[in-house]
């Protein structure tokens, strides 16, 4: 999964899709996740970074990560060749 190049992410969590004109806000954790995805990190790398940084277990991270991915997919800011591929 990739964040499409038309998407602009501000440091304050404002996300703007210049292709659709849509915008939305993400909280600091969402911003961190969005930036990591945008930087091209895969699922395992992001998971390890989060597990190291936060008091979090594997399952909770996975559940929240996929929920977040579904949300940003809904906002059309991601592109996925395979709909089940979140890496």
């Amino acid at each position, binding site marked *: 999964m990739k964040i499409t190049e*038309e998407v602009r992410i501000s440091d304050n969590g404002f996300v703007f899709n*210049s292709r659709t*004109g849509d915008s939305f806000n993400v909280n600091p954790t969402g911003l961190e996740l969005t930036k990591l995805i945008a930087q091209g990190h895969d699922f395992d790398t992001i998971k390890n970074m989060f597990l190291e940084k936060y008091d979090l277990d594997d399952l909770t991270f996975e559940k929240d990560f996929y929920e977040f991915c579904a949300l940003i997919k809904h906002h059309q800011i991601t592109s996925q060749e395979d709909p089940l591929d979140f890496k």
Partner: protein
Amino acid sequence: MSKTKITIAVTGLNNTDNPGPGVPVIRSLKESTEFEVRIIGLVYETLEPGIYMEGLCDKIFQIPYPSAGSDELIDRIEEIHQRESFDVLIPNFDAELFSFMKNEDRLLRSGIRTFLPTMKQFQERDKDKLPEYGEKYGIKVPASLNLGSQNQISEIKEKFEYPVMVKGKFYDAYTAYNTEQVKQSFNKVSSKWGLPVIIQEFVKGTEVNVIALGDGQGNTIAAVPMRKQYITDKGKAWGGITLSDDKMLEITRSLIRQTKWKGGMELELIKTVKGEYYLIEINPRIPAWVYLAVGAGQNIPEALVKLALGQEVAPMETYQSGKMFVRYSYDIIVDLEKFETIAMNGEI
């Protein structure tokens, strides 16, 4: 670099809740890096707000509605030209374009340059011919039915699912959810804009628009896509944002290439959730949100003036996406004398 002094006549100073493009066109021209403009405002009504906006026009003249007859309108334009000697005329209303296009040669002989679509380009994009247009130029359009009388309303049920759009030939569009609402809208639209009334399939999606300028040779000189963010009850954009949408630009360039479109235009499109684009209308002139395109980096009125003067204009390829416009209303306090002058003398 010293700027070229030029006089330009502009119509459409009605900056109301259904705004004409005149005021933003003038603002754009005043920001030209190449021209120092003197503006002649041409108005139909004495309460067009552009008359009263300080610093907008250097002279203002009232002109007769095209419905009074093309000759009367053109005679008046020539009379004003003899006094003020303008170089280029930019008409901004759909309803007046026909008269100006028809008299393009006569205006040119008088020394008035325009840069308008040809009669063929203008007529083939008429709303009641949209299905043929879509087929000819390979663009998806909603299915439509032209109603010449109320008796045909019963045909809608056979061809469409409700809701449908009920549209006037020039302006106005209403959504109708049943036969009764179609009848009401039919009466409203036909009494104002005549027949046919166009019934159009309702395409669900986001309304997006492109402002563009064609050089008449098939080249797209300017094109900026926009999404309306705030729409008034008249369907007018009260806020919008420029988009970075290659597909919209591709549709625009393809259309201009095939039609060899000459002049300003606005494509009104619906983008469906599947990412398909349906062309719902082509306005054959600069739209009222033109100043957004200028803010995003493409001064379309300036380029149009250069084309009208026969100058070479290189296509503008870039613009800033994510630029927004927000419209506002504003009360101007006007002395009665000013209103009296335009009402009594037909000029200020």
